[in-house]
């Protein structure tokens, strides 16, 4: 029997597979498709202080081996998440869940996290400082280490739960930001958020997305994600959640070898609602193929020799 368990910031999870925020709602809708308790955990829809409709549509465009989205953090706001979404989740998910939080100021983040901190089912915070779709198409809040430091510090102050900072790949040096997180006490980092991209419709001669730019995800970005995880693994000593284009159990192995302790699966859920189930079921077979007894042993394995 192979061992798929890993320790994520002090909480052991049955396997490292985590549906990424924004691709799995608040979980319960996927529970109609399969028993979501088979997941390591999942990161719920990015939650903000106030309700948000998000950006105008179209919000989705296709790209080679990937997709763009400019959803813009649509969510019902932290109060409704607590009063409506989490109770529904509780009925079908018995494990700790990862709370994904976004904001527009340090105070926003602290406010939202403080409210969520009281929710027992929340095991980890994933603090999204890198949404590419909410600052007028410009640079994400999280491309400036000073902002990231301030948010990390503020959130760490209000919770004892593990705090994982989700990093933007749209920077010159992601290791600088990761080191800032570690220095301010973050318990982990997750990367990569989406790469900023766009498409144009040659018929209308206009951008396809109403918001002009959107975040690129899917297999297209996998090699960039892998490189950044490898770099960050060299730069910090806190756990990394890897993500970016993971679609198969083989991808999971590759990302863990680069340095990921756990792996989020995003766009793949949208193309195949059973993607995470399939990956979890394939993992033992792929581990045997590569003679891996315990997944936790291969974390960062590509750095040896």
């Amino acid at each position: 029997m192979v061992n798929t368990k890993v320790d994520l910031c002090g909480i052991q999870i049955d396997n490292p597979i985590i549906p990424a925020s924004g691709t799995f709602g608040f979980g319960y809708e996927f529970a109609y498709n399969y028993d979501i308790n088979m997941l390591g955990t999942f990161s719920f829809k990015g939650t903000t202080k106030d309700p948000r409709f998000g950006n105008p549509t179209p919000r989705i465009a296709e790209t080679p081996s990937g997709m763009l989205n400019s959803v813009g953090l649509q969510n019902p706001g932290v109060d409704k998440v607590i009063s409506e979404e989490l109770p529904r989740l509780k009925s079908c998910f018995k494990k700790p869940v990862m709370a994904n939080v976004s904001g527009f100021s340090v105070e926003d983040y602290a406010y939202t996290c403080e409210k969520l901190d009281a929710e027992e089912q929340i095991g980890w915070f994933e603090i999204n400082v890198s949404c590419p779709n909410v600052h007028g198409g410009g640079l994400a809040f999280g491309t400036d280490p000073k902002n990231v430091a301030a948010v990390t510090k503020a959130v760490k102050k209000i919770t004892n739960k593990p705090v994982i900072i989700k990093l933007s790949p749209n920077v010159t040096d992601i290791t600088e930001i990761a080191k800032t997180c570690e220095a301010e006490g973050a318990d982990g980092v997750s990367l990569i958020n989406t790469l900023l991209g766009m498409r144009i419709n040659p018929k209308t001669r206009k951008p396809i997305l109403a918001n002009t730019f959107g975040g690129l995800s899917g297999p297209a970005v996998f090699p960039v994600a892998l490189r950044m995880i490898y770099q960050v693994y060299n730069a910090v000593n806190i756990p990394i959640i890897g993500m970016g284009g993971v679609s198969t159990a083989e991808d999971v192995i590759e990302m863990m070898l680069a340095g990921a302790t756990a792996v989020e699966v995003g766009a793949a859920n949208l193309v195949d609602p059973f993607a995470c189930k399939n990956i979890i079921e394939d993992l033992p077979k792929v581990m045997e193929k590569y003679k891996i007894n315990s997944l936790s042993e291969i974390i960062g394995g590509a750095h040896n020799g």
Partner: protein
Amino acid sequence: MMKQGIYEILFNFELAPNVFRMVLKGDTSALLSPGQFVNVKIDGLYLRRPISVCDYDKETITIIYKVVGVGTEKMSKMTAGDKLDLLVGLGNGFNAENDCKNPLVIGGGVGIPPLYGLCKELIKFGKKPTVILGFNTSSEMFYEEVFKLLGLDVYVTTVDGSYGTKGFVTDVMKNLDYDYFYTCGPMPMFKAIESIAKTSGQYSFEERMGCGFGACMGCSCKTKYGNKRICKDGPVLEREEIVW
């Protein structure tokens, strides 16, 4: 609930220029109402393609699609025996079970296909809908006869007057009696209908989708009763809730 499966193509042929009719064999148990759609995985393309269901029975699904891009172009080149990976039973379709007596069914172009399944369902509930089909020109027409075979009164409009009434579906609609309506078609047609409609009704919308099953919030819209997802809460919305 939604099901995923591999479906075998039984037929795939051109009904009208660039408009194809495909019949697929496989599990149809997830289909619950007309106006629902399937999401089609196409080799070499990342996102699935949502296509409304025209008709279905115990073991076949009929879809009618227009070639508008690389995805539908690839579909158009497939032949009997080829297999497709589908998500089936997506969306909230038309509600044919209401207390209207004299419904009007209005379709424009490639918005027409799901209305065929709707008419069959309305007939099942003892109603005899009147049908208006709008096209740009006679050469682009399809399915007039198929609707007539259901025993319905079918009006056709063409923008250039090459067949039926010259003009738009509303040029016929304004002269008809009805106590409810169902429609699917392009946005300009919706706006024209909205401006003259005298009753309640249901609109089936189209939007660029990510997942097609409510996970990604790619196709959200605002309604009078809160934010809805075209793919999951729609594609059919009631007239009363729509924010134009």
